[in-house]
């Protein structure tokens, strides 16, 4: 009787493991990229992604569908990233030194030089605007979906998107002149 129960328990764990691994494989890039663009630090982003997936593992039984999993992952990632940034602000420059030593601040290394510069400018935006812009242009979410993900009023999100985009455009126009001239 106990052996049978143990076998069923093992089978259940095996199903859960496969579910978790599938979700991890599908969404690791999304989670990592969100955390990376929010924090600007690869090491920290990896830690956040790890925390998020461990949290997912703990809450796997509460996930109702594939869509719910994506929504849940985005929401928790944004929340964890905000927490990490808050902790970094509280600890101040010491942490920056620590991060530089242990992880290395993110280097611009993705696509075109212009894309890298734009991404670097994005890191200079206020946190709330950055979050809205990332969800809008990385994840292609509507303002309603962004509001739902961040748990913020729709009007606030629309305003953050508008102001963030305007600020980013202004920064790009003033700081990327050399590139414009070169092109």
């Amino acid at each position, binding site marked *: 009787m106990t052996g049978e129960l143990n076998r069923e328990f093992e089978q259940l764990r095996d199903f859960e493991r496969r579910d978790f691994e599938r979700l991890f494989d599908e969404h690791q890039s999304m989670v*990592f990229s969100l955390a990376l663009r929010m924090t600007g630090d690869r090491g920290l982003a990896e830690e956040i992604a790890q925390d998020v997936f461990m949290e997912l593992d703990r809450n796997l039984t509460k996930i109702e569908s594939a869509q719910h999993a994506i929504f849940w992952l985005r929401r928790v990632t944004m929340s964890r990233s905000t927490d990490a940034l808050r902790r970094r602000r509280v600890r101040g420059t010491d942490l920056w030194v620590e991060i530089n030593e242990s992880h290395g601040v993110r280097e611009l290394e993705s696509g075109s030089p212009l894309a890298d510069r734009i991404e670097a400018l994005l890191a200079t935006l206020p946190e709330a605007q950055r979050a809205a812009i990332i969800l809008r242009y990385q994840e292609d979410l509507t303002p309603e979906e962004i509001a739902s993900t961040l748990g913020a009023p729709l009007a606030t999100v629309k305003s953050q998107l508008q102001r963030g985009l305007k600020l980013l455009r202004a920064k790009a126009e003033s700081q990327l002149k050399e590139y414009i001239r070169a092109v």
Partner: protein
Amino acid sequence: MPFDDFENELRDSLKREPAPASLKRKVMEARQNRAQLHLTRTSARQRSRMIWFERIAASLVLAGVAGGAVVGHYAIERRKGEEAKQQVFTALRVTNHAFEVMNEQLQRRDKSSQ
């Protein structure tokens, strides 16, 4: 670079990046460790629960034995009391019979003397 198409440029810049290869290994290891820890804690809890069950069962057995002994002792004492009572009654009957015999003899002696 004209910025008319700034939003498209932004979208291209913000394409998802692949996660580092070490992430999956770290997550799977952490998951495995947590499952192992959970299993250890569960079996420790089960062991502790079993010990408590054993203690409760031993207490119940002891209480049963003590109760049985008390009840048995009471029954023996009662039976002894009953036996003693019967002995007293028998002695009383014997005495009574002896008195009756004596009484008859005394009555016969009185009649013969008259």
